[in-house]
């Protein structure tokens, strides 16, 4: 019976609304009523009395359908709420400060890694210095290389750090190179000294790659989680900042105002396989947004109800622990999903903006500067109603 009902109702709702709102709502309503029936005897008896009542079931299905439609309608608003919109100014202020601190940490990390990458430009010279020192003659004949000396100890330490995949600062490497160069210059070659030179060259190569990859990782993290420019506004939540990063990307790369042009861009993308991928990502995101809010509301409702009317401490503590964990996990998953969705949105700007210009009957710009000017002009005309001349592409 439930299968038939779901099939009939799914025909009334779009696929997106069905997956993103109907299914989560159905699951949560069923779970909450089941828990209520288990812990509240009068409710259990009431459900048992009405379980075969056709009028009651019809009314319940109708009420549920209306609730699902309302829930589908407010899904965007719920996501915006997660992005930090519509919150009281004081709370927003406190949260923005936290997000700015996060951004500052990332920016500092990014700068440090940028310095490291610059510092690692000395790597070829270090290798050459080591080689030259090795080939310097004469050596002090009675000297023997001590692997436990300053150079050897430092190289052992760096080898350990390399094994652990740790980042090694260029300054530390420079010190190791200086110390081993001094040794190589005066100490006759021995298998230990040779091995340390080979090892240090390996460490230099590893650090070169590691610093670069870390720099790219942190840069991407910074880029995909926050607006581009440090002076751009910061949202109160991580999700809000991912949303800002999309706007910031389109604006900084092409001067496209994504909020103004997104609907038009969607029209251009319709029918493309890429648009289906984008839609699927959006449905997944909406599904997780629904789960987050339903978990949050259910947990809060049960905690308040049990705290005021409950008699089972274990049930209360189980909900007090499992509820927030579920909410946090769903928020985290939604955040991951939003990152993926944001990337698809950025890609759609990259790939379809020229088609939008064509659709608007405007000539393709000849270069990036012309393009930036054109999008600025379009924004002024479309969003702010400024009247100035735009030449149209001649129809072929």
């Amino acid at each position, binding site marked *: 019976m439930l299968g038939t009902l779901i099939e009939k109702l799914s025909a009334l709702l779009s696929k997106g609304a069905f997956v993103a709102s109907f299914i989560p709502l159905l699951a949560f309503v069923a779970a909450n009523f089941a828990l209520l029936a288990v*812990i*509240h*005897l*009068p409710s259990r008896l009431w459900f048992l009395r009405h379980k075969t009542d056709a009028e009651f079931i019809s009314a319940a299905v109708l009420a549920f359908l209306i609730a699902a439609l309302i829930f589908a309608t407010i899904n965007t608003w719920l996501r915006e709420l997660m992005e930090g919109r519509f919150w009281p100014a004081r709370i927003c202020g*406190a*949260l923005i*400060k*936290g997000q700015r601190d996060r951004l500052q940490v990332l920016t500092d990390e990014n700068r440090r890694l940028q310095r490291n990458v610059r510092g690692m430009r000395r790597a070829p010279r270090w290798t050459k210095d080591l080689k030259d020192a090795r080939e310097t003659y004469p050596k002090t004949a009675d000297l023997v290389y001590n692997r436990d000396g300053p150079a050897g100890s430092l190289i052992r330490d760096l080898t350990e750090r390399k094994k652990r995949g740790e980042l090694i600062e260029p300054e530390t490497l420079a010190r190791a190179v200086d110390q081993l160069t001094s040794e190589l210059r005066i100490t006759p070659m021995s298998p230990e000294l040779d091995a340390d030179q080979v090892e240090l060259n390996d460490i230099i190569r590893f650090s070169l790659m590691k610093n670069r990859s870390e720099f790219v990782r942190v840069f991407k993290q910074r880029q995909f989680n926050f607006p581009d420019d440090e002076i751009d506004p910061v949202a109160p939540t991580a999700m809000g900042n991912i949303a800002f990063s999309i706007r910031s990307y389109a604006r900084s790369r092409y001067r496209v105002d994504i909020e103004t042009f997104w609907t038009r861009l969607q029209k251009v993308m319709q029918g493309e396989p890429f648009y289906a991928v984008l839609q699927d990502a959006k449905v997944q995101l909406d599904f997780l947004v629904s789960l987050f809010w339903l978990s949050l509301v259910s947990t809060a409702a049960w*905690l308040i*109800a*049990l*705290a*005021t*009317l*409950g*008699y*089972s*401490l274990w*049930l*209360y*503590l189980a909900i*007090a622990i499992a509820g*927030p964990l579920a909410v946090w996990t769903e928020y985290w998953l939604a955040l991951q999903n939003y990152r993926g969705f944001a990337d698809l949105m950025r890609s759609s700007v990259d790939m379809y903006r020229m088609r939008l210009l064509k659709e608007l009957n405007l000539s393709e710009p000849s270069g990036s500067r012309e393009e930036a000017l054109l999008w600025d002009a379009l924004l002024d005309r479309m969003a702010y109603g400024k009247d100035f001349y735009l030449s149209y592409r001649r129809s072929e």
Partner: protein
Amino acid sequence: MKWMIISAYALFVGLGALSILSRSQQTFEFTALRDLPANHRVLDSDLREPENAWALAPSLPQSSKYTGKYLDREVDAAAPVKLAYLKTRPAFKAAPNTELFPWLLNDGERRWLEVLDVGWRVDLCAETCPVMDAPVLALECTSPTSGRCVAVLQLTTCQRDKLLAYPNKNKLSLAVSKAELGDTK
């Protein structure tokens, strides 16, 4: 901010837990639907479910823990029937110059377990009645749910002798001569 939210949540959960702990000290008890005499064998039909319309996950005693047990005291109608009042065997004593006589309730007479009560008076009759107006002191069974049951009667010496001398004891059957219906408040 994060720690402030976590602290506020922990405080809320702590206060809720304290509130539940203090509330859970209160136990839900079945109440008597009518006046129940001492040594009464408790039946499901004697008990009213505890009033717990708003309680979530209350620890309710099971009515099976009550039924088939014996009250060690009188319980007024609407008063709680506490588990502490219940005993596995009735405690009774014959009055001076009387004797206890266990009258075995055969399968046809087991219905008396649902009807008879302590304090009622019964006759044992066939063509004649060797025992008349004998008080019931208890209805005792070997187990709360099944097994053999007897109606413990208090007989005078004369009644006992008449009963023992009666030739067709198998034909004797129980009849109520006086019922204590009590107050059902």
